[in-house]
């Protein structure tokens, strides 16, 4: 356990080395919220959404969490390319501790980065109850560790940085745009019925962990959509599957014959 804490501490120190880069990233998220969402609020039909700003605020929190938790993959991929594993293997730390340490640190870094945006959401949408706050933070933590594991599993299996960037882009676009982060699911379902959107895309949006995270916050703060246990089950499944996959891929990468 102590070794895992060391790994988390190390990864946090590395994370804050990019503090100015993080400032740039946060300013982009805030610009999305305080410029783009504000303008869309004036443009979106009131029968579809009463306030786009209020709808989008939980969405941007989730995308920020996702992007920050995914950053660990960049470091792991760098380590793969530089054969850093030899050094890691020489440390008096078990392989599974290394793997879970990286997964946890990636997730926790995402949580820290996302915190100001979550607070902004609470300021504008209202505060949840203590119980709701607990559920929200737990759900966000599940998304964070699921995402850092997803990122690690991709990064550890790819030896080229360009291919990693491409894979990351595909995952980002697929999960961001096929989700309820930017638009409500009922609108996507209408478009499916009209034959504009293919059914698999709407199914993906409904089951996307980013949708579940954003909808969970909305269900508590906006009372729409309605809270269902499925939102939690989905996130538990996402975190479980990818933590196992991420940890296994990472250990396999460490043991790869060189």
């Amino acid at each position: 356990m102590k070794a895992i804490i060391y790994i988390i501490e190390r990864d946090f120190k590395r994370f804050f080395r990019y503090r100015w880069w993080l400032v740039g990233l946060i300013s982009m998220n805030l610009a999305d919220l305080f410029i783009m969402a504000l303008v869309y609020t004036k443009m979106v039909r009131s029968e579809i959404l009463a306030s786009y700003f209020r709808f989008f605020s939980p969405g941007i929190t989730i995308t920020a969490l996702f992007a920050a938790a995914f950053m660990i993959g960049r470091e792991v991929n760098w380590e793969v390319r530089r054969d850093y594993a030899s050094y890691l293997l020489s440390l008096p730390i078990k392989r599974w501790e290394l793997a879970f340490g990286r997964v946890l640190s990636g997730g926790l870094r995402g949580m820290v980065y996302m915190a100001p945006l979550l607070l902004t959401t609470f300021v504008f949408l209202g505060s949840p109850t203590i119980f709701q706050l607990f559920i929200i933070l737990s759900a966000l933590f599940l998304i964070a560790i699921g995402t850092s594991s997803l990122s690690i599993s991709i990064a550890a299996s790819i030896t080229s940085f360009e291919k990693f960037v491409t894979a990351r882009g595909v995952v980002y676009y697929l999960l961001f745009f096929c989700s309820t982060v930017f638009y409500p699911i009922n609108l996507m379902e209408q478009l499916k019925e009209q034959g504009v959107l293919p059914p698999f895309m709407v199914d993906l949006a409904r089951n996307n962990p980013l949708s579940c995270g954003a909808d969970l916050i909305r269900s508590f703060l906006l009372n729409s959509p309605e809270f269902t246990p499925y939102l939690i089950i989905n996130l538990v499944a996402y975190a479980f599957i990818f933590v196992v996959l991420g940890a296994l891929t990472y250990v396999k990468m460490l043991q790869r014959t060189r």
Partner: protein
Amino acid sequence: MKKVLLVVERDVKRFLRYRFLLIMRALWFIVQIALFGLIASRMVVIENYFQYYAAGVSIIILYSTAMFVSYDIYEEAEHGVIDYLLSLPLSRRELVLGRSIASGIRSFMYVGPLMAIVLFLIGVTNPLNLAIALFSLFIFSFGVSGFAITLAVAIKSEDRFDILMGVLDALIVRISTTLYPRTFIQQANTFYGLISNFNPLTFAADLFRWGAGIEKYLTFSNPLIPIMAIIIFSSFFALIGIVVYEKRLEGGGWQ
């Protein structure tokens, strides 16, 4: 002139090396239009928003591709290629002029097919207007390259430049009419509305829409205004780019 052309040729060839990044940007473009544009068009009160949005995204990608030259400059600084370039028998002025022209050309080479898709979706009504608009956009991309070169050599630190780019991107793109008409920006916040009036991306997006025949939500009723604004913007930054590049290039200090 021959030396400038050699710089242009070199930079255009280099651009094709970034194939993965180019693929990613094309993918971003397609997803933005085919998913966000399509769904958002059913969500907003603006008539034919899909066409409006697709035209705006083309300008965003033109802008970001023209900015790409700055990353070339940093890569060359990191690998010591700048010292090699300085040792070549060409003046600093020829070097920066060639780089700006090359950046404009390669932006257009890349964005051209994407714009063609958008124009196919929109349908061209007035080819002469379109030709004027595209020519102005070429000048615009030339100006953006000058802007990128100015910033890159003035800052000389890739980290700081990256941050500045992030912040600038966030503000320049969002406070412009690339994504939404000025009326709504003004309604959301009068200050944003005011800034969007002077944003080069607003001029470029307006011109492209004017050329493509999407005239309902144009910021300026007279297309001469954005054309003149783009000429002033591009001349200013091309000139500043040359001056700053010449002055700051030597002496090291790259971080």
